[in-house]
């Protein structure tokens, strides 16, 4: 796959430089490491730090902004950032109220964030971690803690960021993150592989097939299936999500239809049309919808659907304003 890059080894840093240059009014680079933080600092709030491998843009750096995250630590493509990078981002975004790290549950991320927290502890910083484990396909019911974290991070960052902005304590913000994670599920499929800068595609999918249960690193899914109509694929995903989240008539949800890269908004809208039809039939009310590229796997064609079940608390936090380069919410709809 051809890419618009210079040297393979410079991809992440150059991209970060471009991002910071484009958003210099609101964002700044963290000195010496691949990290970014918000400029406008509110020293009276818990800071939210994200981080993970590159190649998922706009996740993670694009979710840094008003009402969302305060900093993001970036690793190489598809590799968690190292502990030092995470620590520097934590320190740059640090406030007296402490820091909550939202970590997607991949081994590399949990280990590196774990070491970073340990290092932060040595410096007497208050740092807590909440894991994101929304990917239904990655472990069976009953083993929710084993699941990967994927696009649901958007919702979890949204409500957690709002809680921080409203002045919740570190423990309270962490509770919100954990509740939001408990109430969020995602399932994804892929139509094409992706390729790391400088590499060949890391797997193949037959011309009439799709992968069910993809993670966000182009790692093969759990099943290869014959391609069928969008509506049928969506039905399969929605059944899985509704079942796993035990959604019932009268429940209220936020929905994210996410492109993993090359899949177009034209298609995402078709996908959402069926999501809306199916949920309506079950009398599940869609409070808000986001459609676009939020958590990508480089240029992989595919889609993931995330559902967050809203209780009153999450709904009011969801409604708070948020302004980041790639996600906004004007506040009470």
């Amino acid at each position, binding site marked *: 796959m051809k890419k618009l890059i210079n040297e393979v*080894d410079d991809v992440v840093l150059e991209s970060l430089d471009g991002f910071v240059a484009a958003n210099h009014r609101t964002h700044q680079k963290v000195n010496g490491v691949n990290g970014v933080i918000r400029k406008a600092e509110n020293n009276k709030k818990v800071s939210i730090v994200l981080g993970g*491998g590159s190649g998922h843009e706009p996740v993670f750096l694009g979710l840094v902004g008003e009402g969302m995250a305060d900093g993001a630590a970036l*690793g*190489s*493509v*598809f*590799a*968690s*950032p*190292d*502990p*030092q*990078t995470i620590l520097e981002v934590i320190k740059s975004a640090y406030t007296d109220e402490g820091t909550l790290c939202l970590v997607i549950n*991949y*081994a*590399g991320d949990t*280990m*590196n964030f774990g*070491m970073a927290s340990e290092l932060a502890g040595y410096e007497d910083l208050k740092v807590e971690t909440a894991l994101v484990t929304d990917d239904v*396909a*990655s*472990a069976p019911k009953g083993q929710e803690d084993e699941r*990967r974290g994927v696009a649901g991070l958007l919702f979890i960052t949204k409500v957690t960021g709002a809680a921080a902005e409203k002045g919740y304590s570190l423990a309270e913000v962490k509770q919100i993150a954990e509740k939001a994670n408990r109430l969020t599920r995602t399932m994804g499929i892929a139509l094409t592989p992706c*390729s*790391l800068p400088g*590499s*060949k595609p*890391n*797997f193949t999918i037959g011309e009439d097939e799709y992968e069910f*249960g993809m*993670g966000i*690193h*182009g*790692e*093969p899914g*759990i099943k290869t299936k014959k391609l069928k109509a969008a509506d049928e694929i969506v039905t399969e995903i929605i059944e899985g999500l509704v079942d796993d989240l035990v959604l019932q008539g009268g429940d209220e949800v936020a929905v994210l239809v996410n492109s993993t890269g090359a899949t177009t908004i034209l298609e995402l809208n078709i996908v959402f049309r069926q999501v809306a039809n199916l949920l309506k039939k079950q009398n599940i009310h869609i409070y808000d919808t986001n459609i676009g590229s939020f958590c990508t796997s480089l240029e992989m064609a595919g889609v993931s659907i995330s559902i967050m079940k809203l209780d009153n608390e999450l709904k009011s936090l969801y409604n708070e304003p948020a302004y980041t380069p790639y996600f906004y919410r004007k506040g009470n709809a």
Partner: protein
Amino acid sequence: MEQLTVQETQAMLIFVADNLIEAKEMLCEIDGKIGDGDHGFGIARGFNAVKETLNSNTYATVNNVFKDIGMSMLRSMGGASGVIFSSMFLGAGTLPDLAKLNTESLTSILREGLKKVKAQGKAKMGDKTMVDAYEPAVIALEQSQDSTLETALKSAVLAAEDGVRKTKEYPAKHGRAKFLYDRSIGIEDAGATTVSLIFKAMYNYLSTKNS
């Protein structure tokens, strides 16, 4: 019994770094089959940093050489393997100062590293990770305490390579590949391959030097 000075140890590990950097594409390809295809990039990033450090520093003890390797990897690599592979070398930090590298001291360093790797990654033998190559290699070293470093490393290499082959037989329990369940059977683990290459490079350095 053969011993390496601190400087010789350093030279050997620069040779190891060169060998692993060269394996970049091969390791990416293995990782791509059941992982995300970046293992070679991470390992190359790590050992490039290692080379830079080793080429621009002198050390008083063998421990410090290993520790500096671990720190270079930890700072440069990221990913699961950044923590895991740096731990392999950082174990040296918990040992008393070592002036020479011989079978005994290398064994103790790598045994400590193995402890750290297992503490960090929680993987056991049979989970289809680098541990499947690393642990047998350490055991082989432990069983070769009366041998020269070259001979001990030779049996470690064989044990590691055997471990790599065995990773084909079971599904992954850790790392990205674990989500594949039985689909990961039949394919070897990338990290285990890296471990075997590290041992092999040490052995090759010594056997070339000694011949």
